[in-house]
């Protein structure tokens, strides 16, 4: 078995932290579920798992592209650069999605944006309750939801990129995996990513408006703890695969 040296323990801790980052990111992204697709609730009209996974995986593409460059690998700040690349890809995907969604709400459905959870937008101070249409829980993407989504995407991109960075570093030095490190690390990143996207979606119950939603403070701690434990477990397994040889 692998000796419990400090480097391995740090790697397990990093994977656990990155899984938790992904979990926390899901709470930031404003998702309204099926009601939002009918302009019945604030947020993006899709499922929490889908959007978090989509943005995190675009971050994985940009992060792995960044890591594959030789000049980046020899850079002393390589980890920061790879994580930043992951965050950038993820943020661009969410921003494009949210902006286009706003266009549809504004001109396709013809509704102003309003949040159902706060009376005034915490960032811009605009009134929200006057602009909620009858019988709904808000609609569209007010600025606070947009900013919350960007923050969530950044965290998710960093989390996914960090898992990939740790695993590809370990696997490239493994005698068995060696040259296929990117492929194997990519597959495991996806697996750990999905586990950590589904856990918070169970906790959130399918819809959340962002960091201003009261649900946010309520469910974040227990979801984060679950993610930390599960990611640490998956991290131990993923590292042992390389260390076992």
């Amino acid at each position, binding site marked *: 078995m692998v000796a419990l040296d400090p480097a391995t323990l740090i790697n397990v801790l990093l994977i656990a932290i990155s899984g938790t980052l992904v979990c926390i990111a899901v709470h930031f992204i404003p998702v309204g579920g099926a009601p939002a697709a009918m302009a019945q609730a604030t947020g993006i009209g899709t499922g929490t798992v889908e959007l978090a996974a989509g943005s995190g995986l675009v971050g994985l593409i940009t992060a792995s592209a960044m890591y594959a460059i030789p000049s980046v690998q020899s850079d002393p700040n390589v980890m920061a650069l790879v994580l930043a690349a992951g965050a950038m890809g993820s943020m661009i995907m969410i921003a494009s999605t949210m902006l286009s969604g706003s266009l549809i709400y504004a001109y396709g459905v013809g509704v102003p944006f309003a949040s159902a959870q706060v009376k005034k937008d915490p960032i811009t101070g605009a009134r929200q309750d006057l602009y909620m249409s009858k019988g709904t829980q808000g609609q569209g993407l007010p600025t606070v939801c947009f900013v919350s989504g960007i923050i969530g995407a950044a965290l998710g991109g960093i989390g996914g990129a960090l898992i990939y960075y740790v695993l590809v570093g370990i696997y490239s030095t493994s005698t068995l995996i060696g040259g*296929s490190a990117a*492929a194997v690390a990519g597959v495991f990143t*996806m*697996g750990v990513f999905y586990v950590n996207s*589904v*856990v918070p*979606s169970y906790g959130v119950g399918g819809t959340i408006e962002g960091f201003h939603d009261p649900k946010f403070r309520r469910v974040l701690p227990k979801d984060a703890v*679950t993610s930390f434990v599960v990611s640490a*477990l*998956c991290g131990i397994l993923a590292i042992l695969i390389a260390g076992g040889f």
Partner: protein
Amino acid sequence: MSDIKEIPPNTLMAFGIVGGLLGIYLTYILPLAGDAVGGPVKDLLTTIAPAAGALGGMCAIVWGAEAVRRVAKYGLGTGVPSIGQIAMGMGIVAAMFGLAIVKELTLAGPIVALVTASVIGLIIGWFAQNVIKMKIPVMIRCMTEIAAAGSLIIIGFSAAVAGTFEFSKLIPLVFDNGFMLAVFWVGAMALLHPFNAVLGPDEKQKRLLYLAFSTGAITMAVTGIAGIMTLGNAGIFTLLVGVVLWLIFYKKFWDEVYKDAAAVVGTGLIPKTEA
């Protein structure tokens, strides 16, 4: 639904585990037996062996789809696909861990993977039930079952693409060219599509099981196509068996639909109702 006898969960679990492991081990053992015999028998056994792995994966898909049905009937709040994705995410990590960690004891690989996946599924199910408080009675048992089925699905279909489940051979044949993603994703869809597609108040287990066999056969056909590149003739054999099985079970599924639906009409206006 209450007057029709349903197949009990334990029977399907036995079917999934025994069928899955049998198929996986046959993929490994049949070529070795063929080597011992030699001649045309060797070629025959090497050609049909990977299909056994795919059939084992199909048994695991049927088991997993029924477990998804049991837990999703309580209303997961985030949709049926999420439980399939978490199971496959766990399944792939556990499966690869089990196959890689055993080093020379190759035959122990699938069993270790199955046990690991069940343990992780148990832990996540426990957290979901007691920490996140999902309040679904069968959550812990079903999460364990789905994770275990997920790991068997991945090992079974990877063995069908690579011809063996030795980890060192899986890397160049399944990971490098990206076929592992096909196994992962098409297998996940085969697991969670059946219940999602027959969701409704008049859902029947028989229809769901036929659909699960049918989606499993499609996965087998896709791994057969992948096998054409990695294995040659064995891939073509797996593809043909997959297509034949799909035709059989798709027809059976449609027979059930004709029996269960209120009316199957060529065309028509909307019937008058009380609303």
